[in-house]
């Protein structure tokens, strides 16, 4: 199984963590990205995620390989959801194991930051008002729709 996956199904956190089980590891650091009920001053009712899966998966694998090169890791796994997610649902999961916690914390941060900046994944916010917006895709004259990348 690959280390990075795009998933149309809910992310099974227990199964992800089990894949990182390693007798040499003394630390597991995980990051969960949740669907939040507001953004940029607007009430958000749900989020729709869309991915260009083949490139998202190859770029995701590249990010995990970079993390393994930069930090002293035992393992690294990440999964990103696609589809229409409700408030509170898990959108992205990152797990990193290492002998010691410092490398695990640093690598986990590196992976989620790079993933957000580089993976061809898009999200559309559905607002309480009924309006929708693709985040980061507003052009002049439209509502900004979200924070800068």
């Amino acid at each position, binding site marked *: 199984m690959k280390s990075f996956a795009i998933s149309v199904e809910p992310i099974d956190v227990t199964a992800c963590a089990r894949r990182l089980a390693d007798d040499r590891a003394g630390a597991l650091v995980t990051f969960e*990205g949740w669907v939040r009920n507001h953004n940029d001053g607007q009430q958000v009712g749900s989020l729709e*995620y*869309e*991915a*260009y899966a*083949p*490139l*998202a998966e*190859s*770029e995701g694998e590249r990010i995990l390989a970079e993390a393994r090169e930069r930090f002293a890791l035992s393992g690294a796994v990440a999964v*990103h959801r696609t589809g229409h997610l409700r408030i509170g649902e898990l*959108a*992205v999961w990152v797990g990193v194991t290492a002998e010691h916690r410092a490398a695990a914390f640093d690598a986990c941060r590196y992976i*989620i930051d790079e*993933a*957000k*900046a*580089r*993976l*061809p*994944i*898009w*999200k*559309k916010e559905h607002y309480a008002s009924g309006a929708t917006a*693709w*985040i*980061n*895709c507003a*052009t002049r004259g*439209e509502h900004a729709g*979200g924070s800068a*990348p």
Partner: protein
Amino acid sequence: MTRVNVQYFAILREQRGLMSETLETNAPTVSGLYEELRARHGFTLPGNRVRAAVNDAFVPQSHVLREGDRVVFIPPVAGG
């Protein structure tokens, strides 16, 4: 004329009203193709905010199109 397949995602998919299409173009590069399609379909994103991939790999805007290429234009991303 070069025959290519274009796949659309997110805001471009909605503005085009299609997930993919095969078309013929005189544009030599991916950036030229984007400008052609933007003019035809009224895409709101300017070319400098869109990246491109050909055959499932990122390419520069100057990438030269070849017969049978699968082209994807990538709007600003927002994963996480």
